[in-house]
């Protein structure tokens, strides 16, 4: 619609202020990426302990540790992105519960507490039964912790591209994809090829579903909203982010899917690992492109 109007009116902005640049920069990309891994490995351990209890036994402490590291990165980058980081405590003392940021910060803090408890129960107390009970609650909490960023994106009324429930699905899929990829890489010899193959299946299916959602938005999004159409121009044709978008899609979804099929036919762990590495790094690119493009559009 806009195109027809532009052609008819030849309307050009001739005097205005310079508009602000990117509001949420790469720090937010790292935030989302690290959180996906931090919650994703918890989901994977939960599944592995049910499917391969013997092998997953030795993964209790390493998983808690990895999750602590990545959730710490997530929290650190959240803090670094604030313009007033020393006022972070306001979130706890003047909370505004309609905000996904508030709810997320509270949940992430409790999540961190549970992870610390998991590390204590596995490394110091060595109590597997207690660990598994805590893990159940940690895995349940990991779901809203993963989802709250989608809620936050949906609350950004200005950014039409970020719709619910699409973002929720993408957040959960990103956690499953990065969690399985990281688990394939970190499990070393602790897991058999069969167990890794299961993780590969999770990776491949998450990649497939994520890719389908991105392509659906890419093709059908512009048919519903003119703002979405304008934003997607940045990843089409000669758009500023076209190359980055497709590099991300190939690295995170298409190549890993092909490699997983290949690894299953050739029973190759090496190929599986390559798929895991590609999808882990690619995910950061995919997330970054989706974060930046709606911010390029003038709002007024």
């Amino acid at each position, binding site marked *: 619609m806009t195109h027809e109007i532009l052609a008819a009116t030849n309307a*050009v902005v001739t005097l205005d202020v310079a508009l602000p*640049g990117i509001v949420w920069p790469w720090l937010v990309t790292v935030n989302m990426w690290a959180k996906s891994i931090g919650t994703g490995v918890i989901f994977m351990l939960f599944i592995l302990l049910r499917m391969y209890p013997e092998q997953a036994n030795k993964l209790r402490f390493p998983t808690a540790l990895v999750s602590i590291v990545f959730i710490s990165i997530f929290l650190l980058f959240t803090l670094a992105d604030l313009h*007033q980081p020393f006022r972070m405590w306001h979130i706890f003392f003047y909370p505004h519960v309609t905000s996904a940021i508030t709810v997320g910060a509270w949940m992430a803090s409790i999540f961190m507490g549970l992870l610390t408890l998991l590390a204590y129960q596995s490394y110091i107390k060595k109590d597997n039964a207690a660990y598994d009970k805590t893990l159940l609650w940690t895995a349940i909490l990991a779901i809203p912790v993963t989802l709250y960023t989608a809620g936050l994106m949906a609350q950004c009324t200005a950014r039409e591209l970020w719709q619910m429930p699409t973002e929720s699905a993408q957040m959960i899929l990103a956690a499953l994809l990065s969690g399985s990829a990281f688990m394939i890489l970190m499990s070393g010899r602790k897991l058999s090829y069969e167990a890794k193959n299961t993780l590969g299946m999770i990776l491949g299916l998450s990649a497939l579903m994520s890719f389908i959602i991105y392509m659906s938005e890419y093709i059908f999004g512009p048919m519903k909203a003119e703002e979405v159409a304008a934003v997607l121009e940045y990843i089409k044709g000669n758009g500023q982010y076209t190359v980055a978008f497709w590099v991300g899609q190939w690295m995170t979804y298409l190549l890993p899917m092909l490699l997983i099929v290949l690894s299953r036919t050739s029973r190759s762990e090496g190929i599986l690992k390559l798929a895991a590495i590609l999808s882990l790094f690619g995910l950061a690119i995919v997330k970054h492109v989706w974060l930046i493009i709606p911010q390029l559009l003038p709002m007024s």
Partner: protein
Amino acid sequence: MQLGFLVDLHLCMGCKGCEIACKVENEVPLSTWRLRVKYVDVGTFPETKRTFTPLRCNHCENAPCERICPVSALHYLENGIVNIDKERCIGCAGCVMACPYGAIYIDPQTQTADKCTYCAHRVASSMMPACVVACPVQANIFGDLEDPKSNISKYIQVHQGGVQVRKPEKGTNPHHYYVGGGNVTLNPLASVRENGHTLFSNIKTLPIGGHH
């Protein structure tokens, strides 16, 4: 009481008096604006026309900025103004991301969010907002939308079908109206914006809060 604004674009002549008055009254730092007047040229030479649109916060009834603020730094006053408490703001920029009208900025001096407050401090002393006082053609009409006898209510009644808001599809219910507006003036996607090619300026985008 529900305070609101109406700009009659038939009257506005793009003098930017309101923009300057706002800058001075609120000590708005360099490179940031609470209120600005955008020029959009329409047509092909010699059949051309220049339009002027003052743009400020809409003080939305259903404000996404207020909803997303994690610490209630953005809050409603009893008179309907969406106000900001800069001491409480943590600078997460959630509000900047949520506002569909690009009305919020990060103040490079305080590193907190800021925006038009309809001059809440002046209103509290029964004065008109600085931009209203400065406008030489009374294009800015300010008052209580709930009072049928106020100037703004009467203006809305007279112009009824011609009263518009920006981006009504966002469901924000702005308390800021335009008369004489059109797609070109109110919809940013309806005009070409070539960054770095406006009159008197070749600046492209500005860093948020003074840094990226």
